[in-house]
């Protein structure tokens, strides 16, 4: 599936982020962007997996085309989500963009070893944060060919 050939359907993005401030900034930056998208926000790893497996109150949700994943979260952290997604035959093709505060080499290596599709360190500065989200949006929603479900 390519965004411009998506028949006008929005790109479904699952945002896994426990910080309300970061989530709102991310969602506002994506909503203002060029490509029509719909963001589904969950606040921890357990909710992320329930969403992806369409369990309970997530029974009718769409399958995401892209996952934006924080690593430091309560209950189930991002590494665990990443590992579960990338080991699941039905979910592993969904690109996972890790977006997290750490720029520690150990964390970067661990994420890529778990098959994160890419790793972006969240800038502390708000304007740079918005710019990073817009760069992710530009690349992953207009350049990359996202896989069909």
């Amino acid at each position, binding site marked *: 599936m390519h965004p411009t050939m998506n028949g006008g359907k929005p790109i479904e993005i699952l945002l896994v982020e426990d910080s309300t401030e970061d989530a709102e900034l991310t969602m506002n930056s994506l909503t203002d962007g060029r490509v029509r998208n719909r963001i589904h926000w969950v606040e921890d790893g357990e909710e992320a997996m329930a969403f992806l497996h369409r369990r309970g109150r997530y029974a009718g949700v769409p399958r995401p085309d892209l996952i934006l994943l924080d690593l430091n979260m309560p209950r189930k952290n991002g590494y665990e989500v990443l590992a579960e997604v990338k080991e699941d035959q039905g979910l592993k093709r969904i690109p996972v963009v890790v977006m997290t505060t750490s720029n520690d080499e150990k964390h970067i290596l661990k994420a890529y070893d778990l098959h994160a599709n890419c790793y972006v360190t969240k800038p502390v500065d708000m304007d740079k944060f918005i710019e990073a989200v817009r760069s992710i949006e530009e690349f992953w929603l207009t350049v*990359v*060919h996202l*896989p069909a479900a």
Partner: protein
Amino acid sequence: MKRPPCRTIILLDLHLPRKNGFEVLGEMKQDPDLRRVPVVVLTSADSEKAFVAAYDLHANCCVSKPADQDEYRLVVKKIERFWLHVAQRPR
């Protein structure tokens, strides 16, 4: 296979002689040292099955090669911009 000496990304076509891109991708992503190296599949293959297969083999991303040269250059610039200036790459 030795680990590349510096922060590397691979641009990989799928249609290659002798060993095709899927085989290269599969071998890299199963190798404990190479699996972390980002692989950008840049291909003229236009079947959805090919893209899905590449993602299932853990390609980091897949990009369609434009036929037009100017558009091709622009796409490569965008890949460079994102992977060299936005994303973190493993050492």
